[in-house]
Structures are given as structure tokens and as C-alpha cells.
């Protein structure tokens, strides 16, 4: 059961137009305390507009936007959030420590400087001018600025763009630490593995509407297929005709089979070819589910 006090942010039937273009077309979104919500969608889906509305950067044309039960344009609501935007050119001549002190000064109970720096892994950068940092380092500094105010809700818009794998893993760990402290996170990302690794709930948007909402597993269940790959000389046409096989195709020496009952198909496959080798079975990932969802949407639109 969720009482209203568990809700930290809410979009309610929100419509937002830019001139003749409808960026958001009746979006409902509820964010609970302590959850990490990933918002996925192709470019132009309305992710950034949704975040902009929740940050009070613009007003909706219809519907309601709430941040901690208040209007996001109220400063008291924004004192409880941290923000990392996709593109913000921070003053290049200021040192990292100075930036951190500046942003901390906006909050009532900020973290100690060293604590913020350690959480974001930038303790060694504090004396460096921001403009002299690499792209990945700048992103880490922006992350430190987002968490320095001890926020109850963190907005991260494509946080790991431009980071190497190591830095990305560190950021993921920092996000997990924050969520463990009870902080809610709204994360938009293009990297589906990021959503898969972190999110408790995933919202898929396209063309200004929410297409699907649920746990990572529930989203995966949209595509109930598994993929089997193996080296075999079985006939493709024959395998395609087996029950439970959705499709089969040949890639050189390999056969690729899609099925919703991999156990049964495997049994028959192994019986049929004793020489079968290099067997791989893979469940459809978020990527497939996402492609499937957004493709359906495009197909519908084209049909309409």
C-alpha cells in the first residue's frame, strides 16, 4: 500500500506542446520514495520534457505536476532535489572545489565537501579548474554537484554519457549507495544495460506517451522469447516447422532459433543432432523488449 506521503514526484495527465508539436500527450507518472526509476525512449520521446516539467523549468499546458506535493517552481520543493542535466557548460575557470561549495550553499543541510567528493570519486580533482577536465571527469563533477545537497530525489539525465566502463561502474555503485540511503532517483538513459543493472521500475516512452511501465522483468515479459544459437547441420526449414519454434535462420555454420519454450526445443535439438556444439541460450534482454515496444508504436502510427 502506498500512502500519498510516499509519493515524491508526480505527473498527472500532463500535456506539453511546443508550437504545433506535442511533446507530451497525457503522461501519468508517479515516483515513490526510495525507488530508482529509469525512463527509456528514443530521442524525441519526451523524456527531457518530463524532467524539465518536474524541475519547474516550464509549465504544462494541461495536467498537474507535483514535487513533494508542491509546485516544482517553489524553491522549497527544489531544495530537496539534486540535478544532473544532459548539457550544462559550467564555468571553466572555477575550480571543482569552488563549484561544489557554491552548489552546496543553495541547500539547507548539505553534505560535507569531502563526503560529496568521495561519493562521486572526485577527491583528487578538487583543486583543478573545471575547464581542464576530461568529459568523463566533468560528468563525475556534475554528479557530485547533484548529490552534494543531500537530496531526497535525484534527477540524472543521461548521466554516464562519455564515461569509460570503469567510471560508469563507479557511478552505478554511488547511485546504489544513494538509493540505499533512501534517496529516490529518476534516471534517463540510452544504455539499456544501465536500466537493467539499476532500476526497480522502468518506464518506456515514445512520441510523448508512456508505452509501458513496470519492473525490468515485467518489461522483458513483453518479449517472451529466448534465443538459441549453436553449430549444427540440421535443416533450417525442418527446424522452423517444429512446434514452439517462432523462427529459425542460418548464419554460416550456426543456426539461430527464437522460441518461447527453450527447454522443449533444446531437448529435441540435442536428440536430433548428437554432434551439435557451441550451444548458447539467451533470454531476450531489455534491448529486445525495448525495440519490440517502440517498433509496435511506429507500426501503429504508420498504419494510422
Amino acid at each position, binding site marked *: 500500500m502506498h500512502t500519498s506521503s510516499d509519493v515524491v514526484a508526480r505527473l498527472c495527465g500532463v500535456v506539453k506542446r511546443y508550437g504545433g508539436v506535442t511533446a507530451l500527450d497525457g503522461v501519468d507518472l508517479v515516483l515513490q520514495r526510495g525507488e530508482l526509476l529509469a525512463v527509456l525512449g528514443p530521442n524525441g520521446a519526451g523524456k527531457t520534457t518530463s524532467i524539465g516539467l518536474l524541475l519547474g523549468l516550464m509549465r504544462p499546458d494541461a495536467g498537474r505536476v507535483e514535487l513533494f506535493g508542491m509546485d516544482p517552481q517553489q524553491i522549497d520543493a527544489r531544495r530537496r532535489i539534486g540535478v544532473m542535466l544532459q548539457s550544462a*557548460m559550467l564555468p571553466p575557470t*572555477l575550480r571543482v572545489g569552488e563549484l561544489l561549495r557554491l552548489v552546496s*550553499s543553495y541547500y539547507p543541510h548539505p553534505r560535507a565537501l569531502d563526503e560529496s567528493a568521495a561519493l562521486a570519486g572526485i577527491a583528487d580533482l578538487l583543486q583543478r579548474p573545471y575547464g581542464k577536465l576530461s568529459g568523463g571527469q566533468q560528468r563525475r563533477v556534475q554528479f557530485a554537484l547533484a548529490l552534494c545537497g543531500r537530496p531526497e530525489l535525484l534527477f540524472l539525465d543521461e548521466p554516464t554519457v562519455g564515461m569509460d566502463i570503469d567510471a560508469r561502474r563507479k557511478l552505478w555503485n554511488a547511485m546504489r549507495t544513494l538509493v540505499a540511503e533512501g534517496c529516490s532517483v529518476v534516471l534517463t538513459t540510452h544504455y539499456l544495460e544501465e536500466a537493467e543493472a539499476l532500476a526497480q521500475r522502468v518506464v518506456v516512452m515514445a512520441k510523448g506517451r508512456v508505452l509501458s511501465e513496470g519492473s525490468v522483468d515485467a518489461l522483458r515479459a513483453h518479449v517472451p522469447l529466448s534465443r538459441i544459437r549453436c553449430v549444427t547441420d540440421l535443416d533450417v526449414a525442418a527446424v522452423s516447422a517444429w512446434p514452439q519454434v517462432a523462427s529459425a535462420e542460418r548464419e554460416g555454420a550456426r543456426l539461430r532459433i527464437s522460441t518461447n519454450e527453450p527447454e522443449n526445443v533444446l531437448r529435441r535439438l540435442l536428440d536430433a543432432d548428437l554432434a551439435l556444439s557451441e550451444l548458447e541460450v539467451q533470454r531476450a534482454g531489455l534491448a529486445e523488449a525495448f525495440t519490440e515496444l517502440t517498433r509496435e508504436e511506429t507500426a501503429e502510427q504508420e498504419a494510422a
Partner: protein
Amino acid sequence: MNSVSIPATPIASSVSAMSTRRVIGAYLAEARSECLRYMRAPGFMLPIILFPTMFYLLFGVIMNGSAGADTLRYLLVSYGVFGVMSPGLFGFGVSLALERDGGLLTYKRALPMPPGAYLLGKMLMAMVAAAVVILLLLAIGLTLGHVTLSLPQVALMLLTGILGVLPFCALGMLVGTFIKGQGAPGMLNLVYLPMSFLSGLWVPLGMLPKAVQQIAPVWPPYHLHQLGLAALGLEHGSVMMHFAMLLGFAGVFLFIAARRLRRYG
């Protein structure tokens, strides 16, 4: 399941309440970083400081050195006004245009920065830069130019410079709301240089055509020039009228700029 209900509202209000001391601290931190970042940017500070001081040295001390103390005193005001305009126009206009383009303004609006801290910080930065320019010009005039000024005159000149930058901050802000990014410096020079000339900062108005003299009062620098001359005892016109005109200009520019910022961001 969740039988324990937590009273959310009282906690919430205490969490986000900010003590007055911390709010003032935020304003100070904003102003401090705004000053620091520009003082460290030679591309911004050097032209602002060098142009008026070089012009005064060259066209004042060197070329008109024999013309007498009153000429150098007059030129001190002219180049002072010229020097005060640029931190206002460029400090506000260029930075606003770049920061609207680069997303810094959006970022700051999303943060719980206290209202107005952004503009106040820039204003303070422009006032500090204006003070530096006036002090340098005074130093040149008093030493190399052998201009004699009383202490109250020096203080009045400094005050005129520091407050006189404000209408140009408002004008810079207005231009900054019309232009995004790299186009701003060029556009601002198109405002800055002709306006300086037409207000009689380079060539005394008396030597310019009658038409130019007649329309001079529509330019803000003309009024600041008159105030500066009055501060150094060279003009005894209606100080209040010039002051009111500058206040009016600043008010109108600020009003339009603030409206545009709120509408278009």
C-alpha cells in the same frame, strides 16, 4: 502491511526550511564565484581594462597633455564612462547569451538557487570591474596627467562609475536575451561603439554636428557623462534629471529583459 504511518508534512517542512544565514550565504557564494570566474578570464578582463586606460593615456595624457588640466579632467570622465559601459554590457550581455546557449542558465534555474542571486552576482561582478577601471583611470590622471582633484571629487567619480554601470548591465541583459551564443560580442560592439561616439565620449559633443548634439539625450551614456562631469565640477546642469533618466533607462531595459527571460528562458 505498512501499518506505521509517518507524519510526512511536518518533517517535510523542517527538512527544506533554510535558515536566513544560509540564504545570505548562498547569495554571497554566488557573487563570489561570479567575480572569481571573470577575474580569472583574461579574455574578459583585459579588453575591459586596457581599452579605456590605453585611450586615456594616448588621446589624453600624450596627445593632449599640453592642453591643460581641464581637458585631461574632461577626458578622464569621457573615458571613465566609456570604460564603465563595457563591464555592464559585456559582463551581462555576453555571459547571459553564452549561458543561455550552454545550458548553465537552465541548470541554475533547476537548482534551488535563491531568486535573483544569479543576476545579483553578475551585477556585483560588473560593479567591481567598473571600480577597477575607474581607479586605474584616476591613478593615470592624478599621476601622469597632473589632474588635481579633491578627495570628495575622487569619491564621487568612483561612486558614479560603480552605480553608473547598472543601466548598462540592464542594457547588456536585454541584448543577451535576444542573442544566443557566440554572436553576442559582435552585436554588443554594434551597440557599444556607436553609442559611445554619439554620446560624445570620443569627441566632445560641441564639436559634433548639430543633429548629433540634439539626439544625444536619447543615449544613456550621455547622461552618465553629464553626471561624471558634474562630479568633477565641470558641469552644473540638472543632476537629478540625468540621474532620473538613467534610472528610467535601467528600469525599462530590466523590465523588458526580465519579461523575455521569463517567457523564453
